[in-house]
């Protein structure tokens, strides 16, 4: 919020450096925009392989977002509200994919679910193959996107506190009822922005997917993989598809921040 007095207290030179920072992000996007082959844009992005990649990306990202919510909500709850030994360690590990190179995540997943992997061997016996399948894409995306949901939701849970939950319990609500009728509605804005961020991260996932799922058209070749592949042969197509991803990303970020601003948690009335 802008201060009403008009005094901001920001040194002028800060603006100069901030402008450089802004340009670092905006300039490459502008450069890419300048390279777009506009007359061919529609045919390029609607080619069979492009549509297949886009469709696969949207489907797998939606699936991994659902998986992030299913697994991330309980994780955030136990991290924010629970008390158990090893809690800090668990938090560190859950957040690890944020700083890990995705390709390392891909290798780790391969040695877990791959044919020779920790669980992969048993799954293989059961007739289930995960590596280099669409399931692998979803797993890779979930691996890298889960921390975004957990961090966002854990923050919302902490700032909401648990006073409402305590009151709900004394009114006779079982813990499950409290979770469903009080906790989740209260942190819904945090959950929504976490889900949007997870979706965006899933959509952009490249390294872990390539390592763990490969690049099979229509099965594991998501939009970022398609762009990387096209760049070798057809730069115009790569640029056009990049623009599609930028547009989706802008929409996602806009949705996330617009939502956050319009639905700040209601002030608790005394």
């Amino acid at each position: 919020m802008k201060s009403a007095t008009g005094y901001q207290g920001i040194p002028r030179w800060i603006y100069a450096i901030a402008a450089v920072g802004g340009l670092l992000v905006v300039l490459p996007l502008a450069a890419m925009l300048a390279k777009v082959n506009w007359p061919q844009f529609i045919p390029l992005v609607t080619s069979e392989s492009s549509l297949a990649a886009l469709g696969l990306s949207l489907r797998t990202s939606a699936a991994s977002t659902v998986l992030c919510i299913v697994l991330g909500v309980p994780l955030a709850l136990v991290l924010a509200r629970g008390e158990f030994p090893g809690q800090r360690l668990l938090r560190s590990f859950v957040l690890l994919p944020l700083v890990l190179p995705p390709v390392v995540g891909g290798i780790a997943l391969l040695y877990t679910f791959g044919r020779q992997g920790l669980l992969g061997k048993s799954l293989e016996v059961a007739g289930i193959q995960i590596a280099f399948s669409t399931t692998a894409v979803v797993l890779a995306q979930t691996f890298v996107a889960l921390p975004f949901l957990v961090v966002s939701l854990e923050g919302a849970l902490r700032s909401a506190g648990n006073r409402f939950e305590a009151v709900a319990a004394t009114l006779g609500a079982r813990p499950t009822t409290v979770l469903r009728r009080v906790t989740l509605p209260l942190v819904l804005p945090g959950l929504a922005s976490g889900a949007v961020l997870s979706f965006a991260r899933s959509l952009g996932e490249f390294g872990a997917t390539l390592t763990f799922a490969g690049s099979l058209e229509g099965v594991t070749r998501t939009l970022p993989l398609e762009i990387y592949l096209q760049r070798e042969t057809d730069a115009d197509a790569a640029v056009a598809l990049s623009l599609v991803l930028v547009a989706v990303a802008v929409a996602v970020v806009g949705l996330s921040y617009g939502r956050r601003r319009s639905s700040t948690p209601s002030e608790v009335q005394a």
Partner: protein
Amino acid sequence: MSFELQASLRARNFDMSLSLGDGETVAILGPNGAGKSTLLGVISGLLRPDSGAANIGGRHLFNLDAGTRHWSPPHLRGTALLAQEALLFPHLNALDNVAFGPRSAGASKTAARESAKLWLAEVDAANLANRKPAQLSGGQAQRVAVARALAAEPELLLLDEPMAALDIHAAPLLRRVLKRVLKDRKAIIVTHDVLDAYMLADRVIVVEKGRIAEEGPTRQVLERPRSHFAAGLAGLNLVTGTISEEGITTPDGRVFAGQHDPGWPPLPGQAGVAAFPPSSVSVFLGDVHGSPRNSFAVTITDLEPHGDQIRVRAGGPSQALSADITPAASADLGLVPGMEVRFVVKSALVSVYPA
């Protein structure tokens, strides 16, 4: 059905035992940090004591004595908690907030809303049913919170300073509502306010430092306080010592002459207290002529306005005293903190009774 509790929690230096009769409302009075909220936390199941037991009509809330580790979670206790802040669920309107308890108990949505309407009417808030908590004033929200707590049909209602966060105009209405709904209801109300104790409670328990300092019928505790906190609430000076024929002898040898309470014949040597209002104390400079009884050298610690009087606080060697004098008298005497003066107490206004 009565309520009984005995519990101790070492981490908070808390050790209390109390009981409530059927339909009885008890006010818990005490300074900040005395353990009032800890008490409510232990009863409602939000805080776990180290040892103790509690039951309502024979049904155990917890029993951590004699090797048993019985502990009911908060939602099975039937002890609804009303806090200083209304804490209405912000995503539900007033009606659904009140319907929350019945819904949690398994009532259908329709049935829960029907009973919620009745409870809203009970607290004069029927017209607020469709409002979201953000659209309610502090007093309105707190009344809805009262309805929500009552709708859960608790066997014991716990109120943690329900009026403390309200502005001066909203408190009287809520106090009237509470007086009506707490009648014939088992409730414990934690409060700072002597008016709440007078209006709402049958009995008062004064707690200090995690222990019960005194308890008794509201009127008796406020008219014949035995603890410094209760005396402060009642606006009285309180001096502790041993009862003598004349009055009270303090440990440092001062004698406060006064009137023995007819209800308590004096038993010399027994521990007792002398209580007297600050208005019965006069302030003099230098030596006092005439009756030397009840004349004490003191050092002024503070002067502050008190109604249309000036309250002069003085710390004796052990016990603090206050006197109320007119601003004119204070100016005439030139009183300032640090000054040595004499307090003279009218013995006709000093009540002496056993501690």
